[in-house]
């Protein structure tokens, strides 16, 4: 392995293996740490423990058969991954999904985003040593999973969107449940505010820890809430609106200092914005079909195509090269977690171990997405 750590001869330093089995890495990430006491000198993420050749699988079977696999890359934002891939193929084939399908996609995407942020909130507080918030956020998250289970048939790795629409229409029950949930979550934000945001130890642990700058984010390609916490209002939903996002009125929350507390606040405020989008979409939900006319065999015209969507973790981009057959010649997925993890090495040099854990948690990493 080409690593600066292994060649170190300094006897004051020792090597600590954080992971691949460690409570704070939330998956199979291994971080090789060169430590001096409790101070981290050189952190080095080691990737690949969960590699499943997802991109290669995408290149070895008909394009639309890859849809279920997209959900397995980021298990917390499966619908957003579905959306990106379906929209990519729609762009390649020149198909337009019906109006109602677009609205349903937006609602489900945003529900999925809130669910992912809730999961992150709980897990992050668990990283910081607080046990209660994850129980509260799981309570709310369960309700989203129940709503999504009723329409999609699964609870985590959804395969709901299709090229040209969604596979099944939603009913009045879904609309009512979602409205009730939005109302409930608004009240629950007060609980999170009281328990977490106002908690003195929480603020002491996150304020000023790992200050991302705009320059550093640009250098590493960091996107999503981490970038927005550094003060850059870059959100694909606003920057290059896909689907029908330009019709909705919502804000892109940003932070000022780019530290862990800002990243936390950005995510909490994003959940509120997602609720706004959901309510607007429910109000405007039109009647009509949910699937466009799509040929049985999808012959993708020769050329290369990209499509970007805003996943809860940042910019997710699909890139597809076609040789004219129904099997993609090349499929590349640009995942946000990979770029977001990259600056960790630079950022956490000289930090205490607990701070490094706080930084790593604040990036909201989903390891299967990195390894795919």
């Amino acid at each position, binding site marked *: 392995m080409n690593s600066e750590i292994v060649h170190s001869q300094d006897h004051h330093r020792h090597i600590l293996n954080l992971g691949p089995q460690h409570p704070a890495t939330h998956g199979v990430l291994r971080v090789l740490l060169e430590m001096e006491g*409790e101070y981290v000198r050189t952190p080095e993420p080691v990737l690949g423990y969960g590699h499943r050749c997802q991109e290669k699988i995408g290149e070895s079977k008909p394009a639309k058969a890859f849809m279920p696999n997209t959900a397995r890359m980021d298990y917390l934002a499966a619908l957003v991954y579905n959306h990106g891939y379906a929209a990519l193929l729609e762009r390649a084939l020149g198909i337009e999904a019906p109006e109602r399908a677009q609205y349903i996609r937006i609602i489900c995407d945003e529900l999925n985003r809130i669910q992912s942020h809730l999961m992150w909130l709980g897990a992050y507080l*668990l990283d910081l*040593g*607080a046990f*209660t918030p994850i129980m509260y956020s799981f309570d709310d998250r369960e309700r989203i999973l129940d709503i999504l289970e009723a329409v999609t048939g699964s609870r985590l790795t959804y395969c709901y969107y299709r090229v040209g629409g969604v596979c099944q229409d939603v009913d009045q029950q879904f609309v009512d449940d979602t409205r009730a949930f939005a109302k409930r979550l608004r009240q629950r934000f007060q609980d999170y505010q009281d328990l977490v945001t106002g*908690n003195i130890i929480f603020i002491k642990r996150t304020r000023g820890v790992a200050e991302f700058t705009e320059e550093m984010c640009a250098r590493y390609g960091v996107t999503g809430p981490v970038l927005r916490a550094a003060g850059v209002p870059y959100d694909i939903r606003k920057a290059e609106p896909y689907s029908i996002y330009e019709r909705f009125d919502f804000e892109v929350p940003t932070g000022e200092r780019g530290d862990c507390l800002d990243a936390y606040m950005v995510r909490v405020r994003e959940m509120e914005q997602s609720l706004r989008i959901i309510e607007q979409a429910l109000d405007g939900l039109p009647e009509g079909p949910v699937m466009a006319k799509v040929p049985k065999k999808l012959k993708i015209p020769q050329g290369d195509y990209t499509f970007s969507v805003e996943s809860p973790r940042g910019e997710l981009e699909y890139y597809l090269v076609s040789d004219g057959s129904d099997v993609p010649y090349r499929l590349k997925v640009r995942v946000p977690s990979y770029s977001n993890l990259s600056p960790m090495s630079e950022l956490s040099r000289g930090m205490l171990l607990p701070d490094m854990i706080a930084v790593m948690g604040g990036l909201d990493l989903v390891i299967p997405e990195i390894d795919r």
Partner: protein
Amino acid sequence: MEGNAIFQELFKMSMAMTGIMVLVFGNAILMAYFERKWSAHMHRRLGPMEVGPHGILQSIIDGVKLLGKQLIVPRDADRTLYRLAPILSMAPVVLAFIVFPFAPKLQAVDLEIALVFVLSMASLNVLAILIGGWGSNNKYGLFGAIRSVAQNVAYEVPMLLALLAVILVSNTLSFEGMVRAQQDLIWFVFLQPVAFLIYIVSGIAETNRAPFDLPEAESELTAGFHTEYSGMGFALFFLAEYTNMLIVASVAAFAFLGGYAGFPLPFFEYSGVIWYLAKVYLLMFFMVWVRFTYPRTRFDQLMNFSWTYLIPFALVNLLITAVVVKL
């Protein structure tokens, strides 16, 4: 004649030790259950429900499971230290109970220096954690052990300073004396509120519980000093933690909350025991509540908090107390 006296003394000793062991193990079983149930209800969960009605037998089953587990000594671990640590963590904390007056006349030994004895026994736990973490030849264990030593050194100072104020007021080191002094005056929690607060904060830090659970910080050090322990080795550390909680709560009850004082209950000769237990479990509920409310502090913040807030406040409090008592 003399042999008879020795026999009586031995009988008294073994009765006292039996009573204390019942208290210690009963407390561990109860607290393991209570902590899970209390935290569950704070989390809007049910907690253990399967074993017995409302899961009341859960901790007994857990104990049986731990008893049945194989004792594993990791390769390259220091076998002697590794095996010694759990025993060393358990034995002294049990001894601390012999000086507690659970009710009037219900006490094994009324030592003149009871408070010093209890604190020294309770702080031997650090040694056990240190050699356990060192002996298991695990980096996480070593981190936990080192953190534990630094933390306990930092927090024993304010704890002693807070208790010194109480000693000045009550003019005794014996718990029986403190309880009687409080019956004459008023509960010391009203006389010494600052000392009480400082004592409780340092007490939580002494027992290595959240938000000061740095030696076993799960999300940082997996399990800290007991990472490599399984079966009864782990169970003894676990027992010692709950027993330490009981000691900290007991000292708080005796030194600040009037000990066994309370109005006598008609049906029970030793009704003081009930008042003592009520106060102790109230304090322990508070400790559990704190644990499930706050995130973990960082190590340097923890030390700074002790040296820059707790110790100066405790010193000022002690000075004021000394001046007032002298007047």
